[in-house]
């Protein structure tokens, strides 16, 4: 579904990504772990071009999205993204947060969008919050809304950028539950996270990144059970 070829990204002198080759298959759950500054968030943000890659290619469904001719707005409709800081639109109600994009882009009319939003809110148990503003929600509720806001576009793949890192510990569970349910439903997911339990349970494939490279990859049993690289072993010893 997503093919990444020799992806590089520099911010000025700083090389954040130093050549990444990856293939993400449909329905696959890819979990990216690694220390801060390893480039995992930058890699994820390159996938929908929130960061413009310095070099290399990204193909989505066979289309080269890194080419200047590609209409990135069209591609982004099919790639949902969830941010660490939620980024809900504070001036709009929960319902409007969910319906803004589908109606603005003419994918659904107002009535259809409202119905779809209600279904999604039921799915995360927040239908009663439809008409409140984000400021009135807890962190966990905000992130659940952010997830269904992305889902309202019916994306083919969901990108998660440390979705639980800004949450109070007792709210992490409710967000992970929504993500697990999404995984069970067969969504293609790429998740950057520090939640090793989640990586182990949900991931089909775990990438360990350090210093702008994928140092080691494999099924969670292998990465967590028998890591091959010294750097991976060192990292896991510290976090587990």
């Amino acid at each position, binding site marked *: 579904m997503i093919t990444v070829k020799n992806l590089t990204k520099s911010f000025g002198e700083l090389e954040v990504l130093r050549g990444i080759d990856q293939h993400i298959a449909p329905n696959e759950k890819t979990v990216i772990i690694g220390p801060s500054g390893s480039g995992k968030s930058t890699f994820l943000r390159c996938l929908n071009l*929130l960061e413009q890659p310095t070099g290399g290619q990204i193909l989505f469904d066979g289309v080269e999205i890194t080419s200047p001719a590609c209409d990135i707005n069209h591609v982004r409709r099919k790639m949902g*993204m969830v941010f660490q800081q939620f*980024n809900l639109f504070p*001036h*709009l109600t929960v319902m409007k947060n969910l319906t*803004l994009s589908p109606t*603005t882009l003419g994918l659904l009319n107002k009535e259809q969008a409202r119905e779809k939003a209600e279904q999604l809110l039921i799915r995360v148990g927040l239908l009663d919050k439809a008409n409140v503003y984000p400021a009135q929600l807890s962190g966990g509720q905000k992130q659940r809304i952010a997830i269904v806001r*992305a889902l309202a576009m019916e994306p083919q793949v969901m990108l998660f950028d440390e979705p639980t890192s800004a949450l109070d510990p007792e709210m992490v569970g409710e967000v992970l539950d929504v993500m697990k349910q999404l995984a069970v439903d067969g969504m293609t997911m790429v998740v950057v996270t520090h939640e090793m339990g989640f990586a182990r349970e949900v991931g089909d494939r775990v990438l360990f990144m350090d210093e702008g490279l994928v140092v080691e990859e494999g099924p969670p049993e292998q990465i967590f059970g028998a890591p091959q690289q010294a750097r991976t072993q060192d990292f896991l010893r510290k976090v587990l």
Partner: protein
Amino acid sequence: MLFSDIATWFSGVQAEFTLNFITSNRWRLIYNGLLVTLQITLVACLMGIVIGIIVATVRTTKDKAGHTMRKGLPRTLLVIVDWVCRLYITVIRGTPIVIQLMIMYFVIFVSSRNGVLVAILAFGLNSGAYVSEIFRGGIMSIDAGQFEAGRSLGLNYVQTMGLIIAPQVLKNVLPTLANEFIVLLKETAVAGYVAVGDLTFAANRIRGVTYSAFMPLIAVALIYLTLVMFLTWLVGKLERRLRQSDNR
């Protein structure tokens, strides 16, 4: 004794009032001046907002997206327009409004006899520079994540700016913006320099004829004060409506 003193004083005030406002329908000067002041302020204000939005958009686009744009004509164009915008702000903010007004009237539009129109242009251009900086500050204060969230949902640059960034900017800048227009309203008092018959000019004309300063100046001061208080009340109402989403 005391009573007759008060009576004398009162009849004096009454005579002054009659002389300054009633005789030869002098109140009409003030009334017409008020209309001119309102006209200049209102149109200059709208002009300032339009210029401000354009200049602020150019400058923030250059600051935020300029370095990620591919080299080519659009980028070169953006850099040039950004430079022009900065020059405009520097010149306008660096010179007194009275000088700008007189340059407009006596140098640039030397053949125009429509002082009100020239004043509107001068005050609008002046206000635009200040308003653009207000909007720019407002746009910069919005978290980059808001923009990214909009774009990640497939909205294009203009849709994201219009539907997500602009409403939040408006709410944040409203108090500062209102302040700018209160300043503008009072700044128009110098329009008399180019023979525009605004409110202040009316007071001066009455003073020139009646040789009494107290009545016309106090009257005009009270009118300015009332206008500013009305404006403050109006903005307060608008602000409360926009702050709806802040309620916890």
